[in-house]
């Protein structure tokens, strides 16, 4: 077989010479009015975004901000769904709001296909990945995930208070995705830094942000080279061998997809596990009911996903458009808040309450339309196993100090400090 020279100096040079996008001014500081100046990275939003979203849904259902170079925030379920389905007017070429917009020529592929891709390319890039992420395929990860969860709890021996976010929830998706991609498990701590750089560092000066993102790509290139030398049965080798339109994938496609698979599953699932444990720690009735009725757990998990949906996506407006009463400009961001959609009283009874036996739950935690979360079956498996093992091993637990709980800011929201008293 001829050597794979896709990742040679040539590729590195192409990366350096990519066309520049556009930058906007970094604006931080307290929000004056959520309807006209919202910011999902400010502490008030991170601490508790739901009252803000509920208020906006009433008085200004498509809110705006001049921050990030201009962005919109719809909070009604129907509006969020309409945008998710309308891939003609709303592009996925960037899906994390920041002060940098990639060049329009990046569509329809985007930097991390298929999440950053638009039709028609999206369909083909996604099709390559779907078989590895079916419910059937991810059951292969279940025994290892369960053993790993037990080992994390074994390590709690002798402690009365543990940090369920830092010492439990965080590690589970990191281990699972490292295994699937064929990355060394001991690299896990680095992944957390990559996640923070990409998803939480959005208001850093653009040059610093670019510098941080390039660290992730350096890491991924090292993994690519290792896999080119030692092919094995994992997703990285699969991507290196995959073909589209009769030839191997473009190197930026391979690396972009690796970045997506590494980043997208980590703090999302970490957030979902943490938020579920946070709810159970402060709600003894639900905790006892799940202990008594383990069969209710899958139903309860759907409700945790609805009420604490961790993921907000973003879109870029393709062309100027008058949409649902507002005038959107080309390249305005849309913050696509699945959490806000999931708490719309027009869509859900008792939308603001956590009802663990809610039978009908058409929530949008994993998105709607063609970009349905590729890893949703993996995430559900991890969430179920993480909660099963926790409930089995740690019968009773409470918040050790409610005021010590902290939540991540930005588009992925979940507990980052969660001290629980476990005995």
């Amino acid at each position: 077989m001829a050597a794979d020279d896709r990742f040679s100096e040539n590729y590195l040079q192409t990366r350096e010479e990519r066309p520049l996008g556009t930058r906007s001014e970094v604006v931080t500081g307290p929000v004056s009015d959520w309807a006209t100046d919202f910011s999902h990275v400010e502490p008030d939003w991170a601490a508790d975004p739901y009252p803000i979203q509920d208020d906006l849904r009433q008085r200004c259902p498509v809110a705006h901000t001049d921050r990030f170079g201009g962005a919109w925030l719809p909070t009604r379920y129907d509006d969020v769904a309409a945008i998710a389905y309308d891939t003609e007017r709303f592009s996925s070429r960037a899906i994390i709001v920041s002060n940098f917009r990639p060049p329009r020529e990046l569509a329809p592929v985007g930097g991390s296909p298929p999440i950053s891709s638009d039709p028609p390319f999206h369909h083909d890039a996604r099709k390559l990945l779907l078989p590895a992420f079916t419910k059937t395929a991810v059951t292969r990860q279940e025994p290892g995930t369960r053993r790993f969860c037990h080992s994390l709890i074994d390590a709690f021996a002798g402690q009365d208070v543990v940090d369920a976010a830092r010492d439990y929830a965080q590690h589970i998706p990191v281990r699972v995705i490292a295994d699937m991609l064929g990355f060394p498990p001991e690299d896990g701590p680095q992944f957390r830094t990559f996640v923070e750089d990409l998803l939480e560092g959005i208001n850093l000066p653009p040059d610093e942000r670019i510098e941080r993102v390039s660290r992730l790509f350096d890491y991924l290139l090292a993994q690519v080279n290792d896999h080119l030398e030692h092919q094995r049965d994992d997703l990285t080798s699969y991507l290196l061998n995959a073909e589209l339109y009769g030839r191997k994938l473009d190197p930026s496609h391979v690396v972009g997809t690796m970045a997506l698979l590494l980043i997208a599953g980590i703090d999302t699932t970490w957030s979902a596990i943490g938020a579920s444990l946070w709810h159970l720690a402060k709600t003894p009735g639900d905790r006892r009911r799940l202990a008594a009725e383990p069969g209710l757990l899958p139903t309860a998990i759907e409700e945790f996903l609805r009420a604490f949906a961790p993921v907000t996506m973003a879109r870029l407006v393709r062309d100027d458009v008058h949409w649902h009463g507002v005038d959107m400009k080309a390249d305005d961001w849309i913050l696509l808040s699945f959490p806000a959609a999931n708490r719309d009283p027009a869509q859900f009874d008792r939308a603001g309450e956590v009802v663990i036996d809610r039978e009908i739950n058409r929530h949008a935690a994993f998105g709607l339309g063609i970009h349905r979360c590729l890893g949703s079956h993996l995430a559900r498996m991890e969430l179920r196993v993480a909660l099963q093992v926790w409930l089995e091993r740690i019968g009773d637990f409470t918040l050790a100090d409610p005021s010590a709980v902290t939540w991540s800011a930005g588009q992925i929201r979940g507990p980052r400090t969660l001290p629980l008293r476990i005995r």
Partner: protein
Amino acid sequence: MKVQINPERCQGHGRCYDLAPDLFGDDDEGFGKVLGDGTVPPGQEHDARLAALNCPEHAIELLEEA
């Protein structure tokens, strides 16, 4: 009663094969598929309704027989 999946709408969320595994399965790409000819055996009408009412994409149709 019969069940049908509208393939134009299905995105592979998998709620149907989670909630009604006797009526629905997944294909190689995770999209839902109806098992058999979609006829709902007596006693499984509740599962069929649950699958339809939990599909985020409204992809499942229930055909009630006269």
